[in-house]
């Protein structure tokens, strides 16, 4: 079964399954995202870059698109798509840049490989002290003590991009507390939940894409 047919969707809907439905087997070839997939994916992206998503799709320098391949979402140019389709299948390991993957339960996980696109458009940012830098790169959450700076008016559970003091993007996470709440908490409180960091290029090389 390559794609959920309308029939299946309806049946599942009747059973009370109200989430996007995905093929159970791995897709052999690249395909565009379905509507539900697009919704979930964009919802996730918008947590980090807001309405800047449209800058990713309507580009001046050529047409780019998202494609789903083996549950992973890739972002590529039309030329890449054209030529890449000749290689599609089991042998195609990566095309363009990978944004993340859909889990079996239909959620979307952003990968650190998307950082190159998130960082320039990011709305909310966090800067780390040099002492906390290494901690974050090993996959730890960010404590108040390691926090250097924080964008104003960050709300709770807002996606934030993490930088070090040299403005080098280290990864991204989710704000555990709003900016206001951060001011008053003690140094050992977690202020940003870790989601992805560049250390994963080494730690999770195998599972990254």
């Amino acid at each position, binding site marked *: 079964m390559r794609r959920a047919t309308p029939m299946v969707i309806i049946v599942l809907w009747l059973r009370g399954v109200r989430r996007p439905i995905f093929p159970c087997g791995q897709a052999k070839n690249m395909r565009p995202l379905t509507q539900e997939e697009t919704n979930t994916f964009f919802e996730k992206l918008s947590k980090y870059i807001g309405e800047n998503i449209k800058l990713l799709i309507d580009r001046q320098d050529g047409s780019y698109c998202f494609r789903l391949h083996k549950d992973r979402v890739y972002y590529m140019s039309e030329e890449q798509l054209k030529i890449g389709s000749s290689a599609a299948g089991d042998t195609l390991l990566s095309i363009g840049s*990978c944004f993340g993957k859909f889990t079996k339960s239909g959620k979307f996980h952003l990968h650190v490989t998307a950082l190159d696109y998130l960082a320039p458009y990011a709305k909310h940012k966090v800067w780390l002290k040099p002492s906390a830098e290494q901690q974050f790169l090993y996959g730890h959450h960010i404590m108040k003590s390691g926090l250097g700076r924080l964008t104003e008016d960050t709300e709770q559970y807002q996606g934030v991009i993490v930088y*070090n003091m040299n403005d080098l993007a280290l990864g991204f996470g989710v704000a555990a507390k709003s900016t206001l709440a951060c001011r008053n908490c003690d140094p050992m409180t977690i202020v940003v939940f870790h989601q992805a960091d560049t250390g994963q290029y080494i730690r999770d090389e195998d599972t990254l894409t």
Partner: protein
Amino acid sequence: MGRKREILEDDKPKKGPGRKTKKQPAPSFKALLGDEGPKKLSHKQKQRQRKREEKKAEKASAGAKRKATPTPNSRPSKKPKLLFDSDGDDDENLRSSDSEEEEMQDEFSEDDVLSDSESEALEKESGKKAKKNEKKAANAATPKAKKQQEKGNAKTRKQEKMAAPESDDEEEDEKSDSDSDDEDESDEEMDVEKASKKLLKKQKQDESLAQDELMLNIKSQEKFTLPSGQEIEKEDILDLVILSECSLLVLLFVTRVWGKRDRVVNASNSRSGGRGISHIRHILADFSERREEGRSRKEYLDQLCRDLCARFNYNEFLMERLLGLFPNEIMDFLEANEYPRPVTIRTNTLKTRRRDLGPMLIDRGVNVEPMARWSGVGLTVFDTKVPLGATPEYLGGHYMLQGGASFLPVMALAPQERERVLDMCAAPGGKSSYIAALMKNTGLLWSNDANRERCKAIVSNLHRLGVINSLVTNYDGRAMKKVFHSFDRVLLDAPCSGTGVISKDEAVKINKDEKDILRCSHLQKELLLSAIDCCNANSKTGGYIVYSTCSIMVEENEWVIDYALKKRNVKIVPCGLDFGKEGFVNFEQHRFHPSLRLTRRFYPHTHNLDGFFVAKLQKFSNKIPGEENKTDQVEENGEESAKSENKTDQAEENGEDSAKSGDAESKGKKAANSDTKKQAKQKSTDKDSETSKSSSPDKNKAKKNATPDKKNFQSGKKVAGKLKKPGFLPKKGFKNKKKGN
């Protein structure tokens, strides 16, 4: 040269006291004039003289005792043992090679003393020889020495002669002594120019005689005896015994002193290594003069090979090949392989600039400096306090750890923006990312590798370095042309035996043999043909293929390129690298196309890079020579194809001598011609072998196919120009083939 005696200008007034004249007065040879008059020895000199003589007397008496128990048989076998198993092992380890050589000579001279004394043993009684020697000495020795002899008694004279080399040295010493003494003594004016001339003449004679004698001694000293086969076996056994007995002790001690790497080297060196090697190389440098009678060059070479193997832990096959490649600089090469190349990093120009990255790394405690002049993105790392592969900059993709040599093929490829580039064997993505950086993330970069596990590294690295125009696949490189074959440029960094990177992987020293090399070579040929097929000759900007390996074997480099020149419509173009050594055109039994001179080789000892080979090819036609009647040429195994190549080699070379080699068209024709010829030949041989089968249709087919092919190629460029969609060509050929079958 030197200071000159002023003969005529003595009476001229001096212009002024120059600095030199103050320090060194012009030399005068007046000392020589005073040789008729008796000379006085200073008190101390006399004492020294006496002591010397006493010593000699002692030595001589000891020698006489030894002579009493002569062992004539033991001599020839003893010599090499002296060479290889010296008793002073422990001391020698500490000494430099220079001192070793000196020591060697000393040993030889001792040996000579012994042999001389042996031979004289019988004659001593009659004393005839002694007299003769005296006479000789009278001619040879300087006047000063004469006087000494007159002073000394007859016995000491004999003994002096017996210890010839040493006494020579002493004579010279004393001469110089007397020179300085006599300068003070004589104040005579020059009434005696004639006399001085005579004296000079005489002195020359003396010197030449002394020199002759010395040379004689040296000659006999320098003879180096090769161990016989039995001795080698013995030595091997000894090796085992000694190693097993004291391996623990020695290793423990040595590791503590010299560190890990030198461990085995020193253990073997002390026994048979260094001295044998330097000695044999010395002999081979002037073989006809220095060799031992009746020994062939091959024996020496074999021994050298064995010694080098033992010292550096190579297997004999590899050492032989290396000796073939570097007859003169073998030691440099082997030494260079013992040490790692400097760590280099490549700035990722997609994310940062070198002048920004440098200071940033220095802040982190990494001592870096811009790399060689030829690279604008490389940095050499001298030392570092932090792990280079885990700094936030590395993780952020600002640089890539990459050997200096692996910049070269990409620089040779010179990819342009908006091109389609294929990296056929890409893992782990270092070169690929460099290509992407040069293309500034435009166009398409197709990175392929046959190993799925290693492909993950490509994906990870490309993402880390911010490459967005990439496409990573996991195909066998040989099948690439069926997937997509319209690339502007193709980089083939072929899998190889790794003989250029021994410093990185020491296992290569031992685990490679002839078969491995040929297997690599065969795979490389297939891959290169595939790479050429993937490239589009009609591309506006490209049509280039770069072939590189980290091997220095000719079989994996020039031979492969030469094969491709014959099989496809490609020519070699300069790589655009202004350094490196030229590729071989002639090597041992191989005779390659002269344009292989344009390829480049890089060695650890000359360029301080990994051993590397880079060749750049340009494809000038998408037509595959003899495609129609091609059966299984690509699938042929390496040796067979090699044979067929060698057959056609000569014919082709003859043809090429007449025409200029650089010309694309003429070359294309030639290649086509030779290929059709070859095919015809192969057909005929096939036919011969399969006479039982219906040979006539086969023959006809071959003829049919051969003729139109030729036509096509003689109108060479036209055809190439017409082909707008090169990709279809091979398919057509394929169809035809199928039909035929």
